[in-house]
């Protein structure tokens, strides 16, 4: 039954990714049309507009959330592929632990990056 839990969350993560990537497309790639969260003119990826978004807590939270669901979705998919190689149960357990550690490590790194960017943007706004 454990796999049911992982698979259900895998599907839920997919839906969240779809929503957040949709937002990403609207803000970053359709910015010329939508002008969402790019109030300082120019391209959506310009430094000024990026710092503007980094300074908003909503964006910091969504960056971390997107990273978390993308890591879970991707690493679970990788685990599935590896499990289909008819491994021994001990090897499957080792793979699960290694992927969990890699995922948590990357999530920690990404979270630190998002928080640091938020702090830098805030400091910049304050001058």
């Amino acid at each position, binding site marked *: *039954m*454990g*796999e*049911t*839990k992982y*698979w*259900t969350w895998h*599907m839920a993560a997919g839906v969240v990714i779809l929503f957040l990537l949709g937002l990403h497309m609207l803000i970053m790639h359709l910015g010329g049309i939508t002008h969402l969260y790019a109030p300082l003119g120019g391209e959506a990826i310009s430094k000024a507009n990026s710092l503007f978004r980094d300074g908003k807590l909503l964006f910091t939270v969504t960056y971390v959330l997107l990273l978390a669901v993308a890591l879970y979705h991707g690493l679970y998919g990788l685990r*599935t592929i590896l*499990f*289909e*190689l*008819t491994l021994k149960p001990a090897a*499957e357990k080792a793979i699960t632990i290694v992927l969990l550690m890699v995922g948590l490590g990357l999530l920690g790194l990404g979270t630190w990056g998002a928080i640091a960017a938020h702090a830098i943007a805030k400091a910049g706004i304050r001058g």
Partner: protein
Amino acid sequence: MAENSQTTRPITFHVTRYNPERDGEPYIQTYTVPVRAGMTVLDGLHYIKENLDASLAWRYSCRMGVCGSCGMLLNGHPTLACNTQILHIAASDLTVSPLPNFEIIRDLVPDLLTMFDKHRSLKPHIVRADEAEINDPQGEFYQSPAELERYLQFSYCIKCGCCMAACPTLATDARYLGPMPLSAAQRYNVDTRDDGRRDRNTLTGSAHGAFRCHYAGECSRVCPKGVDPAKAIQHLKRQLVLDYLHLARRRKPCQKLHGPGQAKPLPNIPAAPAKTV
């Protein structure tokens, strides 16, 4: 124009031969068989055994697509040898191999034990919560036609192993339960007389259970009895997720009839004749 049943056409059988005690690996041996219209592959193999090579081994029993013994790979397609007419699938050459995804016992005889072990592990029988009813039945269980319809097609499975041979997931993951055992689990899970779904969930929801299915659908395409194991597996997945999220609807216990005449008969069905004994 239909071919005259008396005229014969020579068809070359390319048969996989393998004796694990003697051969390092399987090899192909060819035989030419005079084929009449209507001859099945099983008839062709009998012809080879009786006239050309008595050492050829395969498994068969009923010769009418019921027992599921003669599943083999014909021109790369897993199916029953007794149910396949040679001239329907071959103009001049026919390859006959044992079912893939199984060990070979000899020649065309696959070792189906792994499949039956997985099947048995999923408790493919009615599991009742009330022990007393199993030991001392007090009546008959009533099922409506709609309730019967939910599992009927899955009960047509003859365990021939064709779906297991066609499954691409099983080809890479030998521990995957496979379409036959999983559809058998679904057959009993949706049976209103059964209380064993939660027990089966432990295995069907395991790392090598229903969620390993890639939904290639080959199992359903090759099934000689028209069973749809891919559909059964998708239903299993849905039920597993609903059970995990505690969203599964509680099923009404199966109604029990303690004597004749308690069920509401369908209209326009004549009464049974009077007892003569």
